[in-house]
């Protein structure tokens, strides 16, 4: 089963064009959607989660027309929103059970078993009888993924799941996601590059409502090999450099400014070849650089 998105566009009443003619096909497995805040990721996620309608375009999930037959999609959907709340006084196990009921798990025994298993998987078993209002940020996110996983979803949409989590929690969360069956279409939307590089076998970079790059991360990184150069400079020199060279990124390393530049050969004295990472791909796309590999 594939998720086929065609020519999706959306413009908000305040004039913002959130989606510009987005076309994409996603198969089973982890697909990362990378992009800065305001790129249109959440709009796309919400549309795919049947919560929002686009202005034009179509989406098919397998045989189902997602925009017209939302109810059918919801039966197959698991959704972890970017921001969500919980009923603070309700116990975790009770709310998970309730959400399972609403998902369609009518059989009480089966539901109980499912809920318990998910609580174990998300390492929330010990906290199952605690009120959700007492959960830390990481625990809440794990609860979120637990409710998204109820009912064996075929399409799992995860929107900015690791923002605000400390490193330990992020690792846990990555572990959880990686265990999801490979026959499930998982769409992971994030602005944290390492989420995509750690988890996803395919990705797209989204910027200002458009899909800029759709590629496997490894290929994208490989495409930069040999074309990335770096040099450590004083802060005051950055401005002059940016005029003449296409800067990919400027960042601080141990307190000093390191610039990276995209060029076929060393652009200036003092530049050494850099080992590209996914992050560089990201920055490059953002700056509109042409990343087509010269190699075939």
């Amino acid at each position, binding site marked *: 089963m594939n998720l086929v998105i065609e020519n999706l566009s959306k413009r908000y*009443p305040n004039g913002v064009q959130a989606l510009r003619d987005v076309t994409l096909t996603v198969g089973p497995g982890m697909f990362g959607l990378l992009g800065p805040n305001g790129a249109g990721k959440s709009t796309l996620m*919400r549309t795919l*989660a*049947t*919560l*929002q*309608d686009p202005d034009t375009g179509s989406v098919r999930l397998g045989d189902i027309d997602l925009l017209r037959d939302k*109810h059918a999609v*919801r*039966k197959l*959907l698991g*959704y972890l*929103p970017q*921001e*969500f*709340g*919980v*009923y*603070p*006084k309700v116990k975790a196990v009770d709310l998970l059970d*309730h*959400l399972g*009921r*609403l*998902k*369609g*798990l*009518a*059989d009480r025994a*089966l539901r109980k*078993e*499912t809920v*318990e*298993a*998910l609580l*174990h*998987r998300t*390492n929330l*078993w*010990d*906290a199952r009888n605690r009120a959700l209002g*007492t*959960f*830390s*940020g990481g*625990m809440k996110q794990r609860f*979120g993924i637990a*409710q998204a*996983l*109820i*009912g*064996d979803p075929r399409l799992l949409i995860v929107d900015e799941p690791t923002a605000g989590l400390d490193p330990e929690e992020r690792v846990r969360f990555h572990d959880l996601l990686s265990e999801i069956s490979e026959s499930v279409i998982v769409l992971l939307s994030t602005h944290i590059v390492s989420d995509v590089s750690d988890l996803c076998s395919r990705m797209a970079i989204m910027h200002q409502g458009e899909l800029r790059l759709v590629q496997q991360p490894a290929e994208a990184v490989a495409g930069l090999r040999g074309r990335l150069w770096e040099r450590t400079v004083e802060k005051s020199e950055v401005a002059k450099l940016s005029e003449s060279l296409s800067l990919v990124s400027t960042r601080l390393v141990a307190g000093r400014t390191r610039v990276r530049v995209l060029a076929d050969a060393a652009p200036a004295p003092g530049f050494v070849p850099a080992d590209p990472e996914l992050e560089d791909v990201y920055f490059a796309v953002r700056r509109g650089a042409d990343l087509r590999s010269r190699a075939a």
Partner: protein
Amino acid sequence: MLLAIAGFEVRQRLHRVSTYVYFGVFFVLAAFFILAAGGAIPNATVDFGTGGKVDINSPWSLASLMTLIASFTVVINAAIAGRATHQDVDANTTPLLFTRPITRAQYLGGRFLGALGVLLVLSLAIGLGAFLATKLPWMPAARVGPQRLGAYVVPYLLVVLPDLLLMASVFFALAVLTRRMLPVYVGAVVALLGYFIGINLTGDVERRTLAALVDPFGLLAIDSVTHYWSIAEKNTRLLGLEGDFLWNRVLWTGIAVALFAFTYRRFSFSVAGGAATQRAAPEALDEDRARVTVPHAHLDFSSRASRGVFGALVRLQLRETVKSVFFGVIVLAGVLFIASTAPAIGTLYGTPTYPVTRQVITVVAGSFAMFILIVLTLYAGELVWRERDAGMAQIYDALPTPRWAVVAAKLTALLGIVALLLAVVVVSGVVIQAAKGFFHFELGLYLRSLYGISFVLFACLCSLAVLVHVLIDQKYVGYFAMVVFLAISLLMPVLGVEHHLLRYASVPAHPYSDMNGYGHYVAPLVWFELYWVAIAVALAVVASLFWVRGTPQTFRERWREARARLDRRSGALLGVALAVAAATGAFIFWNTNVLNPYRTRFSREEAQAQYEKRYKQRLGALAQPKVTAVKTRVDIFPGERRVELDGVDTLVNRTAQPIDQIVVRISPRATVRGMTFPGGQETLVSDGETGVHAFRLRQPLAPGASTELAFRVSYLNPGFENEGSDTRIVENGTFIDGEYLPGLGYFVQKELVDDEVRRKHGLGPRERALDLDDPAAPAFNYITHDADRIRFEATVSTSADQRVVAPGTLEREWTEGGRRYFHFVEERPIFHYLAFLSARYVVEHDRWNDVALEIAHHPDHTYDLASMRRGMKDSLDYFTRAFGPYQHPVLRIVEFPGYATFAESFSSTIPFSEAIGFIAEVEKGRPDAIDYPLYVTAHEVGHHWWGHQVLSADSQGMTALVETLAQYSALMVMKHAYGPQVMRRFLRYELDRYLSGRSAEKKKELPLLRVEDQGYIHYSKGSLVMYGLQDLIGEDAVNQALREVVQEYGDKGPPYPTSRVLLAALRRHTPERFQYYLTDQFEQITLYENRVVSAKASRRPDGKYDVTLELETHKHQADALGVENEVPLHDWLPVGVLDAKGDALVLEPRKFEGPRTTLTFVTDRVPARAGVDPLNELVDRIPEDNLMPVTVAR
């Protein structure tokens, strides 16, 4: 800094549309009330006791009005003052603000001042609206007095500002300390609670002070202080800080300040910065984790599963609501409120009635209904917004829960809440009844009334509330819309929309009578409920179609979505619902507008106006024959609510000219089958709308000759009506009177009385009666001009299970053709004042000498029969000795349904409403308990002398001879039965009624001699005057005077006596030194201001006590509008010294000359209280200061 914060707040508010909307609302409200109270709106009358003579812009009117509207602002006050700090919590700006270098005082003070400033500006709208309304051309000029700035400003300073301050403090405190808005709204509810509790307590004159203090808005405090202001005072006096009003303002302002101080102390920036999240101990890795596998999912979307989902959703929503603390607070507030109403259920003269279920339901459900409405409105919003408020909406919306289940579950949960609250009402009612020792619970009635009627109507409102919140996709605007809607639906009848088909969730009034149950109101109830439920179902379907799922959309997008969602099932449901609504609506309309005439208040008044406009000129002075005999057959069909009349009136021409035109008037409800005269007639007028039928006789009636009017009339009540159905012809408890029988000539009594109402219908003002000395008056009695005394005979039939009661002796009773027949004959001539009653009675028989006594009553109502029997016997005893023999062989009391609350005296037959005498609970063990069944019985029996033997002429003072003397007679019976303690309490109530009545007088007050059917004068003032007189000159002297009146005028025809006859007789038996009393009390309007300054006593060596009293006394006389002048005082006033039990050690009249008097007495026992006019026999606006405790020196 503080001002900067306040200024920011104010500027913010000014940028928002809602502020201007609020301003507009207040402005319009104020203007509307002024216009309505001034009579500028044709169908609307609003009267807060202003009567017709108080200027609409008088200081008193404006103070009342502005206070009332200020209390409406509670909701808006809550929103503004609450949001003042809550907006920071809501928008999460607290981390930004609280890390700034501002102090607590600056933050709290600034926010509070800002909110208060906005509220002040908004409140200006009230004064402005009122002022502009008085300038509008539609305001009748007569109602607008001189404009005084003070009249507008004083209420602001004394009432509106303190009210705003108090309310703002309360809501501010709640928002700051709880950081949530729901408690703020609950606070608003509780504030209104204080007000309603106060209203309940104020009904009883003995608790008015408490009521005045409990009311945070000050409206009741104002009322307490101005209650007795005369019309002139209301027009000129500015409200001042005095008495209860002063204490009320001090108390509540103090509370406001204390609350703010408390808030200040408890508030802390760090606490408010955010709740600390608990960090659990470092999480150990779950060992089971690796082994556990998630079972394969089996998803079930069958309808059975969907129903299960629905059930789960309902349970969750209900649980979350009911568990919440604030829900508990609201319910508690409601229960407290019910508890406050409990003591006052049905009290009359301070004596409670047995808490019969129908009364308990009326009082408890009525008072709690407001709370249910508030809860319903509040929680409709909470339920619709619950997921979004919790941040869970996106999760929920992406789940495959069917939309109908979600919407239906919310609606069902809301219905469940309402059902729960109604259960609270039932439980409270039963508890109240049990607490009063009354165990006849009638649970079936509770269920029928609360769940069969109230619940259904609330359910319709729930559906509407949900739809409003769904369509208006903003929570607070949704609330506002619902409040506006509720306000409008409350006002609709005032605005002239009276048809219940047009008023959402409204059904015709359906009073419940123990005798008649819901009677003929069941049919309209069922049909209207069906109609509104069908509409509510349609609304619910629409709500489901527009249900918000996912991110917000424009309305056009939502409309498209709704149309897309309209599938076969919802379409069918919507279609069926609308079809049912249309069908029932059509059926209802046919009943209420086609089968029966559609009556509104205005149309009924208009019919009366038309009667006068069409016929007064033509027929008013037309000479008519007199009716000398009525012989009729009456067939009552209670099950069909039908009555057939077939009778003959004998007419005699007692004038000196021949009469050829005869005008007959009958009730407009009649269907006239035929009216004929022997010798034939030509019909000149046949006017069904006013009931006038005029004929020209083929053969004129010569002077002294007689003829007969043969009439056949039917009263039919097919189907049901919107309002105004005939409550006299019912299934059990029929009571028809002279209105249903033909009368001759033009009836001035049928004209519109109230000058304001007359003006609305295009009529000028009218005098209420002929002048006392008008020479034309004595020719006619004031009951009816068309007869003096008549002979009466009737054969009345009814269904086999009912009995008939009518005036006269029951000669014969038989059964025929499955119906029962009764033949009544009146042996002596009586006045043309007849009645027929039929019901399933139980009859009690007794005797007094050779008079047969009967009480025909509803089987369950046996509570007061002993009082009534005692009343009948004691009265007959006393009156026979005092005034003369009783003229009939029988005396009957008959119960009729409580649709009206009065008792009336026909010849030998006294119909008595179930509501005022049959369920009274006379408190045993309380020495001053007022036995009002006995009192009312004695009063009605008294009418057999005053009204049936002696009847006054139709002029001013007519009721002094009839009602005042009946009152006096009843007072004497009570005095002998119960003693002076009871009289003191009773006279206090009469004094209160007199003073309140004169304050609300719409035309002019008059002295007792010239009373124009004003109840507060002929009943209440009359009681005081006559009781005071018999204390002065002695009971025997008064009775002798009255006996002379009976002997001279009893049983005679015209010329009828006027009140001057009474006064002359009393003067003949009053010593010279007391003659001033009769002048003061009958011919003038006299008020005293008496008080005891000091009361001391010392013990004498011989064991007795010397008592010294210092008294201050003033006398005033008033004109028709209450403008008073002080006059010199040379009067005999009663002075009393009472012991601890309240018995009189000394009670005698003493002569007073001038304002200050010192008196000494010797008493045998220890004096406890002493003073002047201890029994409150004199009209005194401050009766409490007549007595004071005696200080006994050792």
